[in-house]
């Protein structure tokens, strides 16, 4: 896409955001870890796991999303935005 390889996986998307300077290296590492633990490991189940109800995962996800969107103007003047 636009002369670059299409990021067709979450790891490649995170790497693309890191190369754009949107995510820092520790941020990208944290995002990879959260996606692995919270998203993939809880999606592809061979048995139903039970995790401790901990707000930390929610806080980490919100922090990363906020850091990524901090540089976006508010409100974004884009079509398709609700």
């Amino acid at each position: 896409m636009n002369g670059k390889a299409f990021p067709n996986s979450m790891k490649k998307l995170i790497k693309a955001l890191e190369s754009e300077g949107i995510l820092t290296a520790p941020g990208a590492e944290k995002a990879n870890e959260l996606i692995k633990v919270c998203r993939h490991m809880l999606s592809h189940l061979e048995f139903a796991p039970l995790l401790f109800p901990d707000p930390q995962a929610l806080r980490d996800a919100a922090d990363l999303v906020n850091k990524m969107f901090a540089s976006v103007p508010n409100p974004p003047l884009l079509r398709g935005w609700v």
Partner: protein
Amino acid sequence: MALAAAQLQSACVREQGAHCASSFRWSCDPSAPQQFGYPITSSTCAASTTSHGMSESLRSELVSGHAAEGELAIVGSIICMPSKVLPFNDLVKLSFLTSTVFRDFGIRQEHAVEDWQSLVSTIDLLPQVPDSVRRTFSIAKNLFVLSLFVYEFGTVSIHYSGLVLESGIQNRWNLTMPMRVTLQCGSDILHDHSPLVPRYQSGMPQARLEESTCERKGVSKFNEKTDQGPRI
């Protein structure tokens, strides 16, 4: 429901003997104490009743009396005891398992509902975060609060936190695209709007790549629906 269970049990005794009755009571008696706070499930009862090999006539006799009243559920040829319909006060009872972790968060039992909510009340997203991410985040927060009543919702809340991040990453990557993009797959080139324009009600890059690949092969998902020829 208790009446239906009792009749089902006595019918088992008539047909199969005392052994059947004891095993039936172990797995299906709704008045029995719940193990670890989990309600008795329909599937447990279903497995139990089929293993007793109840005759067809007895089954019809039981079903005719209770199915209409909603006391027995019939799934194919299997008779199931429906799940308990809990009154409001039992439904919103604090989960025993969740209350065991109150001390870790410094929560007092008497103010559990308020204190539990306050754990996530300060976590929020910036106003410029797209609505789809915000909605997923809101679900994750609500699930965490509801884990006060159903311990397992805590796990689902963590899963939804992962979905919030995934959605945020995809939406943020979309914002890095210019309004016009060039998609190239092999020798095929498609000049198109960026994923910011939700032409097919889908802004996700993965979906776009799939469409692009389909179009390269001359089999467009979009065109299949509208009976138009290939776009490229």
